[in-house]
């Protein structure tokens, strides 16, 4: 059933041949970036103990930061969230980030406490 009271946003999503070239260039850039980051992560994971022993703490946080960079590029560029309106972007990311930070904090904090309790009383 055709309805003329609904604006077809899907129909307005197209782009021209010229714009396509620019977009493909950006896709190539993100591809190379993600690949390089993954290779760096694996090399760091395998060789960190030979390259710089006793630095596990820094290596771990490097992994987490690199993962965040990768995630940002996938969400913003591949999933086109960066091209969407700001209100939908915030609606997706803000509640999720808030909840995630809370759960990461509380889980790690509690886990360390449980570990301490076991160490002290067992």
């Amino acid at each position, binding site marked *: 059933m055709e309805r003329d009271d609904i604006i077809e*946003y899907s129909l307005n999503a*197209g782009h021209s041949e010229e714009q396509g070239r620019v977009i493909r260039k950006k*896709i190539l850039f993100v*591809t190379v970036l993600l690949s390089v980051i*993954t290779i760096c992560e694996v090399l760091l994971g395998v060789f960190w103990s030979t390259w710089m022993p006793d630095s596990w703490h820094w290596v771990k946080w490097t992994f987490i930061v690199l993962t965040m960079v990768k995630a940002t590029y996938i969400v913003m560029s*591949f999933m086109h969230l960066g091209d969407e309106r700001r209100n939908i972007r915030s609606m997706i990311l803000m509640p999720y980030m808030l909840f995630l930070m809370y*759960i990461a904090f509380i*889980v790690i904090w509690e886990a360390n406490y449980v570990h301490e309790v076991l160490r002290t009383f067992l």
Partner: protein
Amino acid sequence: MSGEASKTMSNAVLWGGGRSPFSLSYGKLMIWFFLVSDALTFSGLLASYGFARHSLMPGMEWPIGEVVFSSFPGLSGSYPLMYVALMTFILIISSVTMVLAVEAGHRMDKKGVVKWLFLTVLGGAFFLGSQAFEWSHFIHGSHARVTLADGRTAFLTENPHHNEAIDPATFAMTIGSVQSEEVVKGPEAYKLYQNAISVVSGANMTENEYGPTSYANFFFFITGFHGFHVFTGVVLNIVVLTMVIKGIFHRRGHYEMVEKAGLYWHFVDLVWVFVFTFFYLV
């Protein structure tokens, strides 16, 4: 009989009669909502993994990813994390081909969509096969943990495959950990092995050679749940690909369905990026 959905409403009530405040179609908005809730499930799983790891029973050690996942199909020897890295790379590349399919769809280039979407399906299938290899290798094990009669822990340097008899002359074990420098060799080591209290080879739901039971359980659940998502994604992509080939979207005037399937596929890739970091690297 009429419910809320079938009630006739004036345009002034729907979106205030104007444009959608998000400038998004209903379908895309809903797939985003679904992805957020699915992302919460995965964060819950990874968070509980973090809890198990940080609250570990004193005296126990959490296994190291580089040691557990160090085999490469078709090659003998140790290639730490190489195969997982290849899997990650394949998944990222299949994400790239997906975004190229979406781009081709925006130009109404049916041939391009078919090509890129087909490559995406191929990448997904490769990833699933790799995961099957990882699982089979994980379950089969590579070093078998031996608890010696004097309470020490030892690991076989070469895991005896199911029906192979052990040759005492070439038998060897490392004491303490897989990478330990302390090695016992030959018939003397074989005697220790025969008098051992227990031998755990590979992994199952109750015990594993790598470390705490929960380690294997989290491995099975998290990578299994993700693998199920990949499987679903591949099926979805095949359905969409069939519809593209039939020309359904071309007649409709837009390839938004490719975009929606793409959002799901990128999400699967996104989850793997986190699983890769927190399960294999950190």
